[in-house]
């Protein structure tokens, strides 16, 4: 121990203290710069990694959104097609209905006309028949009514006929 205390050199101690404090001051700036550079680099690496991660997520999101759009478009197309088909069916049906109606109406009209014509024809026929009948009757009457008996018998049959009618 004595040797140790003996070996302690005050001069060396003082010089070491001075030099070391000087170098501490001298290097402080460089340490700051080196540590700062290391830190900046580390944080920039961290940031780039994070940015890459984010970009990856974004791409994934974009992809999924693209898929969504595609699916939506498909759905829309299907819907449009379906609607078109429905429309077509509806139009065809409508047209059919209309045609049916028209034809029905035409037929009805025709029937009416025919009926009317028939009625008219019947009426005319009746008239003619009546006129002819009258004519015939006249002639017959003129012929028949040459005698009284015959006139009377005729009247009777006529009356019977009328009743039968």
């Amino acid at each position: 121990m004595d040797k140790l205390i003996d070996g302690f050199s005050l001069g060396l101690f003082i010089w070491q203290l001075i030099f070391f404090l000087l170098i501490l001051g001298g290097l402080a700036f460089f340490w700051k710069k080196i540590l700062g550079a290391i830190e900046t680099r580390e944080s920039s690496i961290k940031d780039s990694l994070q940015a890459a991660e984010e970009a990856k997520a974004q791409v994934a999101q974009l992809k999924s959104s693209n898929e969504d759009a595609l699916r939506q478009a498909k759905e829309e197309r299907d819907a449009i097609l379906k609607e078109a088909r429905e429309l077509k069916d509806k139009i065809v049906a409508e047209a059919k209905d209309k045609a049916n109606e028209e034809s029905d109406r035409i037929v009805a009209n025709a029937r009416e006309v025919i009926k009317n014509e028939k009625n008219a024809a019947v009426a005319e026929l009746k008239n003619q028949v009546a006129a002819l009948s009258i004519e015939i009757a006249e002639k017959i009457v003129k012929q028949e009514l040459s005698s009284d008996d015959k006139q009377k018998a005729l009247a009777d049959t006529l009356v019977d006929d009328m009743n039968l009618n």
Partner: protein
Amino acid sequence: MRANFLKTLIILLIGLGGNVMASDSHDHDNHGGHESSMSEEDESALRKLLVKEYINHHLEDSHDFILFSTGNRQDGDEKHVGFALPVILFDGGIKMFMSSEFEHGEKVVEKGGNYYRLYHGKIYKTDEHGTIKHDHETGDITNDMPVDLSITKNVVFIFLILLLMYFMFRGMAKSYDKGGDLMPRGAGRFLEPIIIFIRDDVAIPNIGEKKYKKFMPYLLTVFFFIWIVNLFGLTPLGVNVTNSLAVTGCLALLTFVIMIASGNKNFWMHIFWMPGVPWPMKIVLAPIELIGLVIKPFSLMIRLFANITAGHIVLMSLMGMIIYNSWYGSGLTFLLTVVLVLIELMVAALQAYIFTMLSALYFGSAVEEHEHDHEHEHSVAH
């Protein structure tokens, strides 16, 4: 990569060779003049003494910078290759002169009416003949010692290493500006992982995410300083800065001062009035905690000093065995030395790491928040 490895290997080999070469001069001395005239016992005693002296010389600080020596002291043709360093004495006024005036302790230097002599690496105030007075009972030297603020070998190396660190980290800091990608260039590529290691494995776990930034400059400086200094200690230059208590004591003192200065209310409360124990215990605990507080930097100082010194002593002793013992032991001791140098390389980094780690631990205890917060942090960490 390969080239770098080869370079490291070559530097290592030169390092070993250099140490051996430096020791060779003594070997030469020994065999040169005395083998015939001395008995075997005397010779082995002298060898032991020389090894011991050499190790001590290697471990100690000195006032001049000797790269290697040639010749023999006894024969008077000893020559030292190196250069002198300035001596600064504070003894009733500042006195400055070159250490070459001592002529390696052989001459007495007169400055301002006082006489100084370099004796075993220390400067003493003497009379004009350079008499060193010894205490009769203990054998201690009783001469006065001036306050010695000399630029010694260690001071020069501390300065050079700090200068090296300054330019190294300035270059690294600047290299981040080039290229614009915030990547270090050159040496920074090697240093950056170490800095990140200090931040993520030393500072953040011990101090905490919130407050670690304040201490980073000190922790990084201390880590790199101790590491580089320890590595230089393994080169054949013979500088062992962390071998001196003054240096490790200074570092430990700085850690202590920073710990005290950043201690919060919670920290002081745990020392003087430990919460959660009955009051008689608080009175008992206060002095224990206070002693613990002082022991912390003390153990930091001793640990670093002792590890490096012990490592060097063992290494030098093994090398001494190569030089001063018979040839057949040399192969084994050479192998042992190589292994030990590798271990010392690891210890150099390990001690720097431990010093930094413990400093961070002490800072962490000083800025620690209340118990509740601490537990919360733990649960987050798991």
